[in-house]
Each structure stands twice: as structure tokens, then as C-alpha cells.
């Protein structure tokens, strides 16, 4: 088992990083009145961990006995019947799913499946927790229609069902949903917090951890705890005992992106663009999301750029990122951005060096 999973805190009390949030959550649940919750924050900050710990706090260890189900839902949408296949994770008390898996049919998922689930009120002899919890991931990827029907569902079935929503950016969740939930922002952990976690793991694993090294891992992690732990474990495999100046290898796809960037900086021509396209395809085939790709590309480009160009390049990156979301084939827009960059950069080179 990976360290990320092995040392994931199981209960709210064990949480190291967001202790204050965890304590608040504990209080919230102990008063037995749980509102709908919306967790948001950057990736690798511990949203999922907190949600799992919260569920455990509410239902005890039975929330950990989950089964994976791949169900086909038959939905009657007026004139036709639609089959939607969706994988859910469920225990006796909660159900977790990613409604955005259903693609553009996500609104049916929200309308029907959630409705159906919420209707089936769990029978609890003690009459204690008379509700089920529904964990929805990636709410920010839901379409606007789906979010609207989610809102209706929340109002209608709030007696029997609590929703826990989880997303990266709350700005892509409609105002209506946000106001119906208790919003909980999970910040990215600070670097010293990451160092603390790394030291904790090192202690458990009986490793000698030089102080400077943990700091360097934390710096490289871009304030994502998951990344930090994963690369920490990678370093452990590569070289042990640790030295302070040990190389921390970046993710392979990031290396690939910086390769692309140096290609772009070296030569600006349609031919080079074509070579770059081949590399982009390879990254896309390995399911690197195009948005992340573009972001990384920009990040690497900016590091090598002259200050006066930065503003313009950022502008175009934003422009093509927007187009990418509107469009269908990411490669068109990624490539358009690179072409634009090449054109700007070439003009700059000619202006500067003649």
C-alpha cells in the first residue's frame, strides 16, 4: 500500500493538517444536525480525507464497509428511455459517486438517481440518524442544468438525505447550491505543515530524515500533501539513506512538458509545431487533462520568458483555455496556443536581436 493511503488519518481526531476544521466538523456532527456540506479547495489538500473521517465519525466503522457497484439506471426522459451506467460506492449509510461520469447526461443522474436514493429512507430502529449521506464528487464539473436540478433535489429531500459535495473550485458551483450548503474551504497545507506530516511518516517508517530534505520535498510539492507524500516515497525508493541535496524527480509528464517547452523556445516553425503536436498527443493519450497540461505549459514557459512578454502570453493562455472549455477537441486549442506563443516569441526575438 502506498504511504498516501497507509497514513491517511481515519478519524477526525487523528488529523494533523487541518486540525481546526476537523474539530469543528466533529462538533457539528455531535450535535446531530448536519447540514449539507460543500468542501472545496485545491487538489491534495485533504478534502476527501476529511469527508471519509467525517463519515466515520457519524456512522462508526460501518461506513468503511463499502462495496463497489456498477449499476445501469433506466431513466424515463419523456419521450425516450435512457440507460445510464454509473459506478457507485456505497455502505449502509452513505453512497458516493461521480455524477460527472455520465457526461452530458449528468442532469438525469442528478434528477433521477439521487431522487430515488434520497427517497429510500434508511430504517433506523433508534430513530437516530434518519438520513442517508450522499457524497458527490467533482460537482464543479457538472453542467449548469444538472446543478439546477441538484438544487431542487436538495430542497425536496433534505429531510431524508444529506449531501456532501466535493469540488476544487467553488466558483463553478452555482450560487444557489452554495447558499444551501455549509461551505468549508480546505486550504492547501502550508509547507511547514507538510514537513510535519513527512516527519510523522518518517518516524512511523523508522527512517532517518534530514531536516533540510523534508523542506525541499515540501517546496517541490506545490503545496499538495498527496504529491509531497508520493514523491517522498519515490525518493525513498531511489536513494536511502536520504541526503539533503538528493534529487527529487518531478513527475514524468512534467518532465515531458518541459521538454516540449524547450523545443518551443529553440525553434519557431510549423515543422516544430508539428513535432510538438506528436508529443501533446502522447500526453493526452495518457489521460493528462488538457487544462492541467496548458497550465503546466504556461508555468514552464513563463519561467523562461522576458518580463515584457509575460503579460501577453498569459492573456493568450487564458484565452485559449477558455476556448478549450467551450470546444470539444483540446488539441486544437492547445496547439493554437503554442502557435500563438511561437508567433509572439519570434516577433520578439526579431525585434530584440534583429
Amino acid at each position: 500500500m502506498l504511504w498516501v493511503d497507509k497514513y491517511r488519518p481515519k478519524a477526525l481526531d487523528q488529523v494533523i493538517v487541518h486540525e481546526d476544521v476537523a474539530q469543528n466538523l466533529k462538533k457539528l456532527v455531535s450535535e446531530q444536525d448536519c447540514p449539507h456540506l460543500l468542501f472545496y479547495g485545491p487538489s491534495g489538500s485533504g478534502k476527501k480525507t476529511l469527508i471519509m473521517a467525517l463519515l466515520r465519525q457519524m456512522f462508526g466503522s460501518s461506513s468503511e464497509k463499502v462495496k463497489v457497484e456498477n449499476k445501469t439506471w433506466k431513466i424515463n426522459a419523456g419521450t425516450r428511455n435512457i440507460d445510464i451506467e454509473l459506478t457507485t460506492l456505497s455502505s449502509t449509510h452513505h453512497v458516493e459517486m461521480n455524477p460527472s461520469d455520465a457526461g452530458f447526461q449528468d442532469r438525469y443522474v442528478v434528477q433521477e438517481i439521487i431522487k430515488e436514493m434520497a427517497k429510500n429512507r434508511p430504517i433506523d430502529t433508534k430513530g437516530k440518524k434518519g438520513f442517508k449521506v450522499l457524497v458527490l464528487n467533482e460537482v464543479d464539473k457538472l453542467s449548469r442544468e444538472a446543478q439546477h436540478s441538484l438544487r431542487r433535489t436538495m430542497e425536496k429531500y433534505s429531510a431524508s438525505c444529506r449531501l456532501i459535495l466535493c469540488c476544487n473550485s467553488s466558483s463553478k458551483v452555482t450560487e444557489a447550491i452554495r447558499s444551501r450548503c455549509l461551505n468549508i474551504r480546505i486550504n492547501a497545507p502550508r509547507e511547514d505543515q507538510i514537513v510535519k506530516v513527512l516527519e510523522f511518516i518518517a518516524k512511523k517508517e523508522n527512517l532517518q530524515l534530514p531536516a533540510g530534505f523534508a523542506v525541499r520535498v515540501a517546496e517541490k510539492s506545490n503545496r499538495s500533501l498527496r504529491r509531497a507524500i508520493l514523491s517522498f516515497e519515490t525518493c525513498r525508493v531511489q536513494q536511502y539513506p536520504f541526503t539533503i541535496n538528493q534529487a527529487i524527480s518531478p513527475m514524468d509528464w512534467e518532465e515531458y512538458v518541459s521538454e516540449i517547452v524547450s523545443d518551443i523556445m529553440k525553434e519557431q516553425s510549423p515543422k516544430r509545431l508539428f513535432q510538438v503536436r506528436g508529443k501533446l498527443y502522447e500526453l493526452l493519450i495518457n489521460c493528462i487533462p488538457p487544462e492541467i497540461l496548458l497550465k503546466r505549459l504556461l508555468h514552464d514557459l513563463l519561467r523562461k520568458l522576458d518580463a515584457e512578454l509575460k503579460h501577453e502570453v498569459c492573456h493568450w493562455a487564458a484565452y485559449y483555455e477558455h476556448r478549450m472549455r467551450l470546444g470539444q477537441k483540446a488539441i486544437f486549442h492547445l496547439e493554437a496556443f503554442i502557435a500563438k506563443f511561437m508567433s509572439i516569441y519570434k516577433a520578439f526575438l526579431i525585434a530584440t536581436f534583429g
Partner: protein
Amino acid sequence: MGKRDAVVVLSSDDGGDEGEGEGEGALSSSRSRSKPAAKPHLARSEPRRAKKPRVSGSRSRSSSSRQSSIVDEFQFLEEDFNEVFTGAKVTTGFGRSTAKESWVDKYKPCTFEELAVHKKKVEEVKSWFEERLIISKDNLGDHVLVITGPAGVGKSATIYVVASHLGATLCEWNTPTPTVWKEYVHNSNTGQYVSKLDEFEAFVERTRKYGLISQSSAGESKSSAILLIDDLPMTHGNVARRRLQNCLQLLVQSTHIPTAILITDYGQVDSADREARFLEELHLSLESAGARKIAFNPITSNAIKRILSKICRQEKRNVASEQIDLIAKASGGDIRHAITSLQFFCLKVDWPSFSSSSPTTVYDLHFGRDETISLFHALGKFLHNKRESVSPSGKDPHPMQEKFMRLPFKMDAPEKVLSQAHGQARPIADFLHENVLDFLDEEAVDDASAVLSYLGDADVLLHSFHGAVARNYEAEGVVQSAAASIAVRGVLFGNSHPLPPRWHSIRKPKLWQSEKFSLHNKDEMLRQRFMVYNGVSSIDTSVIATEYMPACKWLQHRLQAHEVMMLSTEIEAGISLDDREVKTSDDEIEEW
């Protein structure tokens, strides 16, 4: 459903052209009189009921009285029709008897000389059948001949002629005529519906096992029979296609009767159309199962001209050679179409009592096929971006800035070219995107940026209707053509320094393959995402792709079973990537 035997229809009067005889079942009684004599001697198991336009093959035998009344009715209708049809003819002094028939049937080829098909191809088909029929029966492994080609190039006619030449009995599977569902229910008293595919499967099954029983019972010598499968049943969806494919493969592997399968291809192999791709796949699978494939090409316009002028002589029409030329060209290698056009043309000329010399001045045909060009031809036009060398003189009413000025095209409006190529917006955009960089000047990065930006605009437009709540097809059509137009014009405009013309290959978009692979990988990841978080929760695929996978690569020797699985898909993806590279280089299609 009983009545399967209606399916093995052995027809004598069916035209040499597939699909054409379908609607004319009722005509057969009046038609057979004027049949050319040299016909292959054929057995009929049933009086062509399956082909009647309104009576499905499932009609029960007991209702023959009703059936005959329908036939009568049809004959009445036909008389009416002929009266209308021949109204003009009578004035020209030709008897009704000649007007009864369309020339396509009347001048159906009966000998090798009359076939317009290229001699080599005919010879090939003939010798194949000779080998199978005369020399030896079971020594040769393959008994199936697949003939492909566009519509109206004489695939069926060749088989008929060859069969009659060899004196072989021709047994034929024809796709039963489709009926309206309500009619079907009305006509069939009992039983449940059997799909055409089921019928076909049953037919193939029987032929494989028992040979052609109906034919042997008709007293023919068993030695020379040819099975002709004209027009495969329509299939829709992957399941049905796989069934058809399996069924045909079985047939290829096990039949002992020389069989000819005719497949009409619609000339759209290069498009993203799934139907066309399926047909291509079908050829390949049949060939790999051991079938011999012969591809027929469109008939040359010279051959068509020869046939047409012969018909003119026989009909004693005076048609100028220019006209024949024009008809032959407009037909695009489809001889059936050419003959029909000729017949219609003769009608038209004689309608007003002009002298027959007048049509020589009329070069404009008001009928005929629209001229089409292949997708690759159109793409070549767009990508090469040929322009006039000088801008038109004269004052431009809308003066433009220097940088927006372009020389005029050396071709029709891009939209017209698009419509001639039947270009769909999506594949056009994909193809342009794949290939356009090769056609840009080595230094012109600005052009590349402009072109790609326009292609991006087209992509955005194409996506805008995706998954819209109320699908508005008309609006979608407009958006589609706007997107195609933007893609094409963007490429033409953006490429402001067109290269001098030179040879270039046009590649198939790599995008399609890469999308396929990335989908596949994504599915794999979706399956694995419950394995992290101790199996208690799920995780985003993007996180798996960007963080877990790279880490797992480093940690492989410490991985437990499920993580090894994750890794194996990674390796697999790497392999398939290499495969892909090989494949695309094979797929490179020459432009001209």
C-alpha cells in the same frame, strides 16, 4: 415465421442491376414477353413473391386469390402509368411495345461483348468461376468471390453473363423488400417478426449445411450452380454488424457452392462514416477468411459512350455525339444511370416537335448526377491554396487593409467545393488540422497561429450544440456548415504565403486514434480509482493520471497486485502508441 423459402428466390427476369428490379415485381408478367432469349436457364422456387413491392416475403401461400387481385390492380396501375409515360412516345411514332420497358432492362447485356465492364475484370471473374465449376469442385479451398464497386458498374450483370456463358444455374439471395410496419402486420396473419438479418442468417445456415435444395428438386443438374448474394441485409449497430460478419465468414469457410457476394461501396471510404468503415472491415475479414476479392472500377466514359451510341442506333434515335459525351461524363461511371438519362433525354427532345438537329446546340443537361469530388481532392484544393497571380483590376468597392488582402482563388467558392465533396464539418476540420502544417511556409509561424486559431473557432462552433437540451436540427445544420466554412476559409485565409505546388501526401487524422487510446486508458483508470484511498473512496481520474501513475512507476517493485495492474496498463499504452505509429504510416494515402 414460415416462408423462409420465399427467400431463396431464383429469378429469371431480374435485371442485371441490383436493386433495380425491386419495385417492379408486378411488371414481370408483362415484361417477360420481350425478354432477350439468351438467358441463363434458371429455376424458380416461387413466383417472385418476395419482390413484390407491397407484399412481404412472409405472405402466406393460401392467400393467392387476394394476391392475384393485387397483381391485377398493379397491372391497371401500370397501364395507367404507361399511358402517361408513353403519351409522348406515341407521337414519335414508336409502338407501345418498346415503351413498355426502361432501356436499362431492354438492353441488359447478354454476351461478353455487350458488357461495358473492363475486359480484364470480366475475364478474371469468368476464369474464377470456370475453375470452380468445370475443372474441379472441392480441391480448391475458396469458394467465395467478393465483388466490390460503386453502384451501376455492372457487378450483377457480369455475374449473369458469366453464369449464362457457363450454363450454370444462378441462385440468388435478394434482400426482401422492406414494408411499412403496419402493412406487414396487416399482411402477416400469424407469427412474430423476423428481422432481415435473421432471415439472412437462416438462409446462409441452410446453404452451408444442405446446399441448394430447392434447386436440385427442380431437376437441374447439380454440377453447375452459382449462388449470388446481392445486396447484404442492412445492418445497424455493432451487434448486428458483428453477426453479419460472423455469418459471412462462416459461409466463406464452409460453403461448397461457388458463391459471389456483391458489395456496393458508396465511395466514402475516406470519411469518418461508420457504415463505410464497416464495409471496409467486412471486405478485409472476408478476404482473411479466404475469399477472393475483385474490385470493379467505375466504367470509363468511353465504354459508356460506346454502349449509349449502340442503344441509339438500335432505337433509331438521332442523338448528337456531344450529347452522348455529356451524358457519359455526367454519369460518373454509373452505366445504369447513363442509360436512364439517355432514355429520358430522348423523351425530352422529342416532346416538342423540334427538328432533331436542335439539341446539338443545347449543351446543358437538366438532369444527371451532381458532379462530385472526393474528400481528398477537396482537401488538396484547400491545403494547396492556389491563387491567381494578379488581383483583379478595377476599383474594389470595399477597400481593405493591406494585411487582409488576398489574391482571388483559383477554384470555386470553398462552400461549393465542400458540398461537392459532401464534406462534414467535423472530419473536414480534423483533416485540415492534421495536414495544414505541412503546407505552410517554413518561416510562417504567424500563419500557423492564425490557421490554428480559426480551426479552434470551428471546433468551438461544432461543440456548441453538443448535448443541448432541445435538439434543434435545423439550427445545428446551420452551425455545422458555418463551422465547416470557418475551418476551410480560415485555412485559406491564414495561409498567406502559399507554397509552390509540390507533391504531398495527406494523412488521416492522428487525432482519431489518439482519442480512442485515451478513452481506453481512461476506462482503465476509472476501474482503478476505487483502489486508492484504501478502497473507501473514489478518486479523480486526473489525479490518478498526473500523480499516482508516475509515482507507481517508480515504486513498481514495492507494488501490490492492484498497483501492478495499474502499471501494466501504462505499459500497454506505451506499446499501443508504437502500434499507432506504424499504422498511420501505412494509412498514408496519396493525394492524387
